[in-house]
């Protein structure tokens, strides 16, 4: 990431992601669903500090590994009695960015338990599996060849420290799954549908791999 992009990210006055944060804050306080409650009726926003550093996480009620977006939707369905927000839709991204921002600067803190060990291994396997017409694995670029160039861009180490983030190429905010989809298409593999468990497991592995790094949500990337 260039110095200019970092400057844009670090300054709330110029970060385009700030537009989504405004939306996220409005939604946090807005009443929704049959319960007539907003997020802020149950949670104080200050209590959301650190939450984003722990996702994806195992949810004991549905006994499944879920990411932050899915956790927000779970709250909507069960607590607010409102329809789930569309994955990758503007509303969910805004809310997830707003929650994520509360943990800005905190180290990623992914825990692995008996319940999630299998998911971590599955995520690692996906990361190392060759796939697509180009027959490339994630690891071949992001572990063996990082810092080299791919069509003029530097190959990063694939640490998802700032999602959902504003990508200048997208001219919009997008989730980690959208970014993964990008790489899948890049190696000519068929991407999974948004919300697929394979994506969540890969997200989990990547976040575990980046544990200890500081969260930058919502980041700005080229």
């Amino acid at each position, binding site marked *: 990431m260039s110095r200019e992009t970092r400057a844009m990210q670090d300054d709330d*006055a*110029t970060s385009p992601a*700030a537009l989504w944060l405004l939306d996220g804050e409005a939604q946090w306080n807005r009443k929704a669903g049959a319960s007539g409650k907003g997020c802020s009726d149950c949670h104080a926003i200050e209590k959301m500090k650190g939450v984003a550093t722990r996702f994806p996480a195992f949810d004991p009620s549905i006994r499944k590994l879920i990411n932050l977006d899915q956790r927000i939707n779970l709250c909507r369905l069960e607590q607010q009695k409102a329809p789930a927000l569309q994955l990758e839709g503007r509303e969910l991204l805004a809310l997830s960015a707003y929650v994520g921002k509360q943990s800005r600067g905190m180290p990623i803190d992914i825990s692995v338990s008996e319940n999630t060990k299998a998911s971590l291994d599955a995520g690692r396997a996906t990361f190392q599996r060759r796939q697509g017409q180009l027959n490339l694995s994630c690891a071949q670029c992001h572990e063996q060849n990082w810092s080299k160039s791919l069509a003029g861009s530097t190959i990063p180490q694939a640490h998802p420290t700032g999602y959902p983030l504003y990508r200048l190429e997208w001219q919009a905010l997008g989730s980690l799954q959208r970014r993964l989809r990008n790489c899948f298409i890049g190696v000519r593999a068929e991407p999974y549908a948004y919300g697929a468990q394979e994506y969540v497991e890969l997200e989990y592995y990547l976040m575990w791999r980046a544990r200890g790094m500081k969260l930058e949500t919502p980041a700005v990337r080229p």
Partner: protein
Amino acid sequence: MARVIVNVPATAKRGEVIEIRTLAGHDMETGFRRTQTGELVPRNIISSFTCSYNGEEVFRADLHPAIAANPLLSFTTVATESGTLEFRWTGDNGFSATQTAAITVV
């Protein structure tokens, strides 16, 4: 609903050059892109931006296709007296957004 963010220093010395930054949430659809079925996506951009300082226009910009989404405009003016800055964006399909910011000049 339009979302805009303006960044103006709250206080300034008389005669000081102040930097103003504005960010407007907009898709800035160029009008040159086509859908998968080949139809042209109609142009939808912000076409004009003005900033007035106590009613007097101090900055104006015409925007065109090929300006990225969510345009960020940064410009300077001289702080002359306390008052309000009014920002106005207008564009295609009746797009209009206004925002004001107060400044105290000492």
